[in-house]
């Protein structure tokens, strides 16, 4: 009987990276000539660069595509992935990439994905007061602040924002498109709070919420506040 290894959990995470996107144009031969001209001018142009090709505007057969890849690799352009291709069209030679925005749009509807974005590794814990003029940006997860946020300070988070002190500054939760993001604070004296772009300023915050512990969330397009016990 073959030895059965216990299934060990392994770690992986999502990440955003910069890549150069090449968009070939028809006729491909002319486009390749342009690439050659570029390489003649600056031979190291593609050296050590991560390159993605975008073939969304081209209708390529599998053979055309493989030829294109060969042409590029002959020019020492290393292709990391392809964008705009139908996964079933090509064999697994090159990974098919999906655009960041598309994933993000999906995440709003998919709670499973939403919860994975707020994994502890991407969130931010701040234990000192956030001073006027300071900007805290957390592009992946939640922000937790175990101190106060001063007037003139700004917190921007992809996820929710938790403040265990007085909030006197501005908080933008779900700032990269997350309607499920929330804002919690122990004492509300904010200049502005916003979730997914829907904001209210100090003037619009009802008086009985001022200086109270609150949470804020989005109800459709309306930003709602309730007191916490």
């Amino acid at each position: 009987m073959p030895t059965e290894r216990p299934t060990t959990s392994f770690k992986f995470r999502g990440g955003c990276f910069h890549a150069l996107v090449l968009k070939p144009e028809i006729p491909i031969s002319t486009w390749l000539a342009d690439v050659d001209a570029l390489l003649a001018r600056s031979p190291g142009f593609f050296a050590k660069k991560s390159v993605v090709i975008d073939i969304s505007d081209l209708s390529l057969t599998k053979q055309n595509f493989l030829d294109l890849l060969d042409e590029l690799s002959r020019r020492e352009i290393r292709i990391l992935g392809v964008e705009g291709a139908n996964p079933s069209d090509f064999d697994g030679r090159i990974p098919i990439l999906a655009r960041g925005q598309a994933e993000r749009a999906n995440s709003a509807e998919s709670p499973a994905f939403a919860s994975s974005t707020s994994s502890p590794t991407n969130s931010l814990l701040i234990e000192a007061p956030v001073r006027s003029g300071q900007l805290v940006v957390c592009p992946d997860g939640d922000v937790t602040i175990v101190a106060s946020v001063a007037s003139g300070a700004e917190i921007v988070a992809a996820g929710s924002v938790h403040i265990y002190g007085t909030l006197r500054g501005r908080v933008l939760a779900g700032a990269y498109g997350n309607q499920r993001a929330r804002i919690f604070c122990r004492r509300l004296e904010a200049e502005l709070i916003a979730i997914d772009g829907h904001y209210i300023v100090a003037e619009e915050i009802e008086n009985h919420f001022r200086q109270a512990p609150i949470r804020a969330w989005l109800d459709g397009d309306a930003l709602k506040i309730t007191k916490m016990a």
Partner: protein
Amino acid sequence: MAQVLVVTSGKGGVGKTTTTAALGAALARAGQRVVVVDFDVGLRNLDLVMGAERRVVYDLIHVVQGAAKLSQALIRDKRIETLYLLAASQTRDKDSLSDDGVERVIGELRPSFDWVICDSPAGIERGASLAMRHADFAVVVTNPEVSSVRDSDRIIGLLDSITDKAKHGEPMEKFLLLTRYDPIRAGRGEMLCVDDVLDILCIPLLGIIPESKEVLQASNLGSPVTLNNPKSAPARAYSDAARRLRGELVPLVVPTDKDSLLSKLFGRRAA
């Protein structure tokens, strides 16, 4: 080896120069060797408050640029012989200060003094950042008023990010000096009270200087308030703050000019 202290605030007109002169004189009177350095290049004031404006030959810029030696530029106070002034230039602008030059001058001052007190210009620009950059700790001067408190908060953020200490990952100590405080008006809610300010700024309190006409009088006479009338309320408050800087535990009292009647005990230990 001197302790280098920056007196800063962000906002102008809250009493940085008065504080620099008053703390410097109070420390010197206690036998400490003190130099006060004016970083407000282009708008020098400290020489006036110290009463040395007619004896300025060389200034900080000359020393930074190597045009004069430190010993030529240091002006000894006529009243206390352990108190020195390094004046700012009125004719140059703040771009004449180089970071390396300032670092060298502070380094040269350290071995000869117990205290180097840097009077920061208002604002958060180059002059202010150079004044705080090489300091060991900071006295943040704040008036009990919202805009001053917010600017002080901004300055505290800068102290925690752009100073040498912060860049080396060390904590930058900061103390709050609340100036122009009027306990009666604060009690009536006409100005922020001590607790409001401490709640926002979250740094230890070095002292509370009461609002007093003595301050203006002293600066017009070209004398630090702690020397001009040592028995006056602001002078006693500054002297107490200076003793706290030296590590003494002095109960925090807000002195008033009509002493026994209105003296208020705050029951709080200062920094």
